[in-house]
């Protein structure tokens, strides 16, 4: 019955501009939102939606986002980036007395659903699409009727399709076997796990054999697609874990692989990179206009590289160079360095986690079929780490610095005899390794903690990657990291996160017994002696 009213209201909305009378109802309904109990607020929100006016949608959205404010005299305002908008007059109001209207999840759900329904008729196709999604999340009979109403007017093909599926999944619970049959047939090429579970529930109760048959068939095909997507998801997660490992390890591959220096403070270089990111972000927040904030990450890259590279060179010149040829001592000295670095950061920034926000272009993800979401930050990191690897490889292969570096690695005395400043090359190589660790820190700050212990978490893993892949071989590091990541992710569902990690470690240990020099070993005398 209410549904019928709704439709009338909607029709009214579509025909005429709101009359003065409607205005009064609207403003009273609006003011009702500022109630004491959540129950009343919910009632108010539903009432407001029931008026079926398009302009209610932004208000309900604001309510859901906690952007709806109320002045002491009960006027409702929408907060937008620090300014207040009076929804009726659409005027900007300035006040400092406004208080946010509190919401809880239930109210938020109602508001979103209502706003969604209203948005079904918004001129903006995207909004309509979102609206259908919203309705799918809070299904109800009147919702179904509304979608039908909207479907009749819908022009955009993709949204039509979306609505049809939505309807179908709503119809699954209809008591008309015909509708149900149509629905299950309709849904045959969906790959949405929620649809799957709906059909499963349908099958629990379904009596109509015809429907059952089709439903089972549909279910089968959905199952197949969902498992397929599951596999793809696993693969992606493996790759993204691999890319994280790789980022953490590349710098090490340079210092360890090229110079043979075990840098136990490598993790702290990553940590410094992350803190530099934090500092840059704060700088942007403090000194630059708000709309530039999304670019802070770009600015952080060179900054982090510079900071860590300089620190690295400092360490090399100040400490590590005196330890060449004594790898084990180097290990211990750099361990000492890592302790000091951690404490330094603790003294400067304090022991607690620092907040590094993802820029908006790294937040969220593409919802693909089968409930698999391709998250932006992961994708960015995968691409980024490939870029870093490529850049490094190019540098080593084509730049004169790279040439010197390789020369020094292969035959130090000969290189110096040929007038290559081995000392400077060492410093720069170490600086390069540390710098890369630094930009790795920038990336890792986007998915994890930024705390003084940040580095500790990566050190063992990155050593494993380098040793497993084969010291001195970037290609090996790449393959090592990715394969470890993927293996880990495919183990996790069966073994659980912890056991998976353990199994991977054991595997590496055994593997190194077989191939002491890793996957891509450098053969030849130079290595043997």
């Amino acid at each position, binding site marked *: 019955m209410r549904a019928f009213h709704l439709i009338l209201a909607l029709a009214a909305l579509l025909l005429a501009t709101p009359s003065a009378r409607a205005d009064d109802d609207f403003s009273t309904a609006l003011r009702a939102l500022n109630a004491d109990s959540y129950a009343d607020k919910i009632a108010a929100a539903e009432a407001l939606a029931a008026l079926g006016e398009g302009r209610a949608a932004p208000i309900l959205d604001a309510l859901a986002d906690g952007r709806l404010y109320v002045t002491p005299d009960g006027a409702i305002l929408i907060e937008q980036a620090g300014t207040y908008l009076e929804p009726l007059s659409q005027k900007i109001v300035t006040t400092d007395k406004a208080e946010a209207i509190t919401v809880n999840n239930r109210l938020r759900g109602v508001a979103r659903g209502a706003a969604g329904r209203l948005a079904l008729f918004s001129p903006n196709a995207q909004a309509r699409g979102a609206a259908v999604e919203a309705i799918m999340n809070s299904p109800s009979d009147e919702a179904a009727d509304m979608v039908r109403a909207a479907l009749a007017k819908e022009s955009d093909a993709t949204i039509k399709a979306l609505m049809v599926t939505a309807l179908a999944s709503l119809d699954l619970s209809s008591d008309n076997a015909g509708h149900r049959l149509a629905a299950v047939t309709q849904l045959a090429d969906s790959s949405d796990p929620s649809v799957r579970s709906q059909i499963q529930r349908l099958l629990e109760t379904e009596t109509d054999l015809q429907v059952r048959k089709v439903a089972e068939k549909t279910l089968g095909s959905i199952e197949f697609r969902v498992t397929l997507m599951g596999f793809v998801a696993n693969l992606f997660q493996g790759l993204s874990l691999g890319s994280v490992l790789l980022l953490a390890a590349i710098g090490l591959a340079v210092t360890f692989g090229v110079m043979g220096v075990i840098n136990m403070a490598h993790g702290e270089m990553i940590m410094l990179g992350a803190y530099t990111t934090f500092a840059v972000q704060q700088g942007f927040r403090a000194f630059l206009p708000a709309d530039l904030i999304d670019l802070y990450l770009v600015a952080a890259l060179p900054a982090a590289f510079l900071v860590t590279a300089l620190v690295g060179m400092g360490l090399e010149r100040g400490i590590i160079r005196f330890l060449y040829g004594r790898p*084990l001592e180097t290990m211990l000295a750099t361990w000492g360095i890592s302790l000091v670095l951690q404490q330094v950061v603790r003294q400067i920034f304090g022991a607690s986690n620092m907040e590094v926000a993802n820029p908006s272009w790294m937040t969220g993800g593409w919802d693909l079929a089968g409930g698999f979401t391709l998250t932006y930050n992961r994708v960015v990191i995968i691409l980024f780490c490939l870029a870093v690897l490529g850049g490094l490889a190019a540098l080593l292969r084509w730049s004169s610095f790279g040439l010197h570096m390789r020369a020094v690695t292969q035959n130090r005395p000969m290189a110096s005899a040929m007038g290559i400043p081995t000392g400077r090359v060492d410093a720069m190589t170490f600086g390069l390794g540390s710098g890369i660790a630094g930009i790795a820190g920038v990336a890792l700050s986007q998915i994890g903690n930024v705390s003084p212990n940040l580095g500790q978490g990566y050190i063992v893993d990155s050593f494993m990657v380098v040793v497993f892949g084969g010291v001195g071989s970037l290609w090996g590091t790449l393959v090592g990291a990715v394969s470890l990541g993927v293996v880990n992710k495919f183990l996790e569902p069966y073994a659980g996160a*912890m056991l998976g990690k353990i199994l991977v470690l054991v595997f590496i240990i055994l593997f190194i017994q077989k191939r002491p020099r890793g996957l891509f070993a450098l053969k030849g005398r130079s290595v043997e002696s």
Partner: protein
Amino acid sequence: MHSLSHLFLNPGDRRFWAGFTALGVLFLLLVPALNLLLPADSALHVPNYMVTLIGKYLCYAILAMAMNLVWGYCGVLSLGHGAFFALGGYAIGMYMMRSIGARGVYGNADLPDFMVFLNWKELPWYWLGFDHFWFAALMVMAIPGALAFVFGWLAFRSRINGVYLSIVTQAMTYALMLAFFRNEMGFGGNNGLTDFKDILGFDLSQDATKMGLYLLTTLVLGATFLLVRFVTASKLGRVMMAVRDAESRVRFLGYSVTGVKLFAFTLSAVLAGIAGALYVPQVGIINPSEFSPANSIEIAIWVAVGGRGTLLGPVLGAFAVNGAKTWLTGAAPELWLFALGALFILVTLALPKGLVGLWAGLRARVTEKSND
């Protein structure tokens, strides 16, 4: 003849015994005497907590000597020795858990509290036997020994050495840490084993028991001292040093480097296990964080600080570093990591021979002065 051949490696027997007895007197007689005989308000009185503290250091000293055997003499830097230490600790811990009996909070005579709590119905097979002290004592040596033997055999046979070995051993202890964190493992998960009541019927909360454990540790340290000296003074000791200096050359002389390393590694692991077994009753808890790679690295640091390849160095290092740690964590809690880190850097840079080397150097200079 025997002593002759080491005149230039180790000090002559007379000097050695002099030093040995001196240490013995210091730890075996002096400390207890100062603790028991002197009144509490006397300036020289050694309070109880100090005794337990020194007892703890003594365990570290044993551990350091074990480490020194493989690293200092044989040149194999294991960053997984914390694992052997912890395994020894767990073995004795399991015995003490069993001897709690029905005195646990849930009053279950058959199962330790944490198992009752995880709804385990019966004792897992690998806990069987730990009701008996002799079995636990055996396992204290057998488990670390066996692990070291298998791991070492695999590693040394395929000639994994230098930093590679260090990294692999690190991975080993890391994997063990993760494994022991799992509650399903049946070793108490993150909390490990705790709430010990008594050992061999002696109440652990009694000062007398603590003193007993302290003295026992001292004796074991002495025994370790003699054992390490026997090994390093033997021809095998010389081969070990030869391996440290020129591994491949030793092979061409017909010695099996794998065998030599395996011997040193396994023996050292057993010693580490014993150290752990003495440690746990004195600190009253054993848990997975003992496996953390950081701990193992620290052991190497003690040895480096004290002086590698010397008999006394490790003991010295263990006392110096841990003493400094105890003192600084109280005196300068915000800054002690700086001091510790700086110490490591300084020692590796300036004192490659550690404190012992420093001392020897100073003496040498003094004698030179007196000569001219």
